[in-house]
C-alpha cells in the first residue's frame, strides 16, 4: 500500500508578484510503506520544496498530497497530526537544539504529542540508542557535544516521535568520512528494525547509491526519474546532463565494461566491485 501519494503537485513561490517562481511543476508519484527513497537533483531543483510539502510545512499551489490515502489538507486544522506522522530532519539540525540537556531536547517532541512521562522516557531512550548516543550523553548540555554528536541528538529528537515516515534533508553534510558512514548505517539499521518509510535528500551520489532502494531524480522542479537505484544509475549520461553524477565506483565499472571486460557494471560500493572483480578473475 502506498503511504504517500503525490498527485500533480505544483508549488509557485510569490504567486502574483514579480518574483513569481515555480519551484515544483506537476509532480506525481507514490511511495510504498517501508520504502527507502533517495531524492537527488541539482541545487534549486525543488528537492527541499518537495519534502516540505510532504509534511504540510508548505501548502501546494495545485495538486494534492495523500498520507495513508487521506488528503493532508482536507482539514487544515488537523495539519499538526501530519507532522507527527511525517518527521522531518532539516539541514544542519544541530542548530535547532535548544534545551538544557540532551534528554529534554529529545523529549520535546513526544511531550508535545501528549505522551505520558513514562512513554516519553521510553521513546527518548530508544531514540537515543537508534541514533548512536550513549546514555551518559543524555544528561549533558547539547552544546557540550561534538558536531557529530549534536547532529545525532537532533535526529534522535525526531525519531522519538516515532514517525511513520522519516524525512532527512542532507543529514551527512559537513561530517567527516567516518561520521558519514556511521550515521548512514544507523539510519539504515533504524529502517531495518522499524520497517518504516524513509526519504533521504542528498547531494552525495555515493551515499544514496549505498543505502537507498529507490531514487527520485528532480530537475528544475520536474520529476525526471523515479525508479530503483540500479535503474537510475544505469542512465549515467542523462544524470550528467542535469548536473548530477554517478558514484566513482560505478563509473569505473562502466568504463571497464566499455573497454571490453565482460563484467557486471551495476555496482554501487567498493565492496561489491571488489567481489565482482575477484569473481571475474577467478573464472
Amino acid at each position, binding site marked *: 500500500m502506498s503511504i504517500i501519494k503525490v498527485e500533480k503537485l505544483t508549488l509557485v513561490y510569490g504567486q502574483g508578484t514579480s518574483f513569481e517562481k515555480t519551484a515544483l511543476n506537476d509532480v506525481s508519484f507514490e511511495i510504498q510503506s517501508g520504502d527507502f527513497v533517495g531524492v537527488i537533483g541539482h541545487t534549486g531543483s525543488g528537492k527541499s520544496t518537495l519534502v516540505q510539502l510532504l509534511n504540510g510545512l508548505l501548502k501546494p499551489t495545485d495538486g494534492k498530497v495523500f498520507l495513508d490515502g487521506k488528503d493532508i489538507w482536507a482539514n487544515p486544522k488537523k495539519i499538526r497530526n501530519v507532522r507527527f506522522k511525517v518527521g522531518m530532519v532539516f539541514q544542519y539540525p544541530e542548530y535547532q537544539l535548544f534545551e538544557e540537556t540532551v534528554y529534554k531536547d529529545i523529549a520535546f517532541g513526544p511531550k508535545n504529542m501528549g505522551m505520558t512521562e513514562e512513554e516519553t522516557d521510553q521513546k527518548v531512550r530508544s531514540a537515543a540508542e537508534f541514533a548512536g548516543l550513549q546514555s551518559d550523553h543524555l544528561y549533558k548540555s547539547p552544546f557540550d557535544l561534538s558536531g557529530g554528536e549534536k547532529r545525532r541528538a537532533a535526529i534522535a529528537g525526531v525519531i522519538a516521535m516515532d514517525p511513520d515516515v522519516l524525512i532527512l534533508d542532507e543529514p551527512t553534510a*559537513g561530517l567527516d568520512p567516518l561520521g558519514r558512514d556511521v550515521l548512514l548505517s544507523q539510519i539504515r539499521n533504524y529502517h531495518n528494525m522499524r520497517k518504516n518509510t524513509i526519504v533521504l535528500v542528498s547531494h552525495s551520489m555515493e551515499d544514496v547509491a549505498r543505502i537507498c532502494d529507490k531514487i527520485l531524480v528532480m530537475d528544475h522542479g520536474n520529476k525526471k526519474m523515479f525508479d530503483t537505484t540500479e535503474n537510475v544509475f544505469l542512465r549515467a549520461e542523462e544524470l550528467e546532463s542535469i548536473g548530477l553524477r554517478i558514484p566513482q565506483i560505478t563509473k*569505473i565499472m562502466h568504463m571497464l565494461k566499455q573497454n571490453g571486460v565482460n563484467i557486471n557494471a551495476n555496482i554501487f560500493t567498493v565492496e561489491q566491485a571488489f567481489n565482482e*572483480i*575477484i569473481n571475474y578473475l577467478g573464472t
Partner: protein
Amino acid sequence: MENFIQINDVYFQYEENGKDPSDKYVLNGINLNIDKGEFVAIVGHNGSGKSTLAKHLNSIYLPTTGDVLIDGMNTKDDNKLFAIRKKVGLVLQNPDNQIVAGVVEDDVAFGCENLGIHPREIRKRVYEALEAVDMYEYRKSSPDKLSGGQKQRIAIAGIIAMQPECIVLDEPTAMLDPQGREEVMSTIQKLNREQNITVILITHYMEEAVLADRVIVLDLGTVFFDGTPREVFAQVEPLKKRRLDVPQATELVHYLKGCGYPLPDCVLNEEECVQALLKILKR
C-alpha cells in the same frame, strides 16, 4: 628564501568566558611551511583543528603560543592586520552567509570598497574577478537567483577582487551539488595555475584533495601526514583509523593489490584505476 606562510610550533586553545581555559588544545604543536603558488589540501576528522588552523592564517585567531608568519609578518602584530588580510582571503562553507549585496557586481565590489580603492579601479577588478570565475555574464543578476555553485564562485570573486596572494577555502563545496562542486574546484585550480595564487583548501571530500599538489592530514591538532596526494592516499588503513577515507578508485586498487595482484601502490582517479585494472583483467 623565506616561505610565504610559516607556522612555527603553534598551540591554540579556546578561552572560555569567565572560566580558566581547559587544558585541551585544539592545535597541538603545528609546524608547517607553505610556499607561494602551492595548492595545499588540508584534511582531517571533525574536531581535528582544520578550521581553527585556517582562521590563524588571516589573524582571526591568534596562537596561544607559537607564531604564524604571513610573508614575514607576524599575525600577532596589530599594525600588520590589514596588510595580512589583504594578502590572505578566506572563503567559507555556506555561500548564503557570505553574500551581502542585491546585485552580483556590487557584492563582488564590497571587499574592495572597504579597502578604499578608487571606484574606477574597483570596476576593473570586479570585472576581471568575475571573468576569472566565469560569472561575468551574471554581473547584473541578483545573487539569490543563482545556484549554490554560482553563489560560491561569486564569493570567491569577491575575494579575488581584493587581489590576495593566498586564498583559504574552508569546505567551500560542502553544500553544493556534484556539478557545483566541479565548477568551484576547476575555478580554484585555474586561479592557482594561471594567477599563481596560493590555495589552501580544507575539505572532507578526498576526490578534491587528490587535485592538490600537497595534502596535509591533521589529527588531534597535529600534522599526522604531509605529502603528495599519491604518498598520502597510499596510507589507506592509517587514514581510515583517523576517521578519513580515500577515493573509491584508490580503495578498490588497494584491496585488490592486497590479494596479490600486480597493481600500482596508489591510483588517484577513475582513469588511472581503469588503466591499472585493464592490465590484470585483459590477459
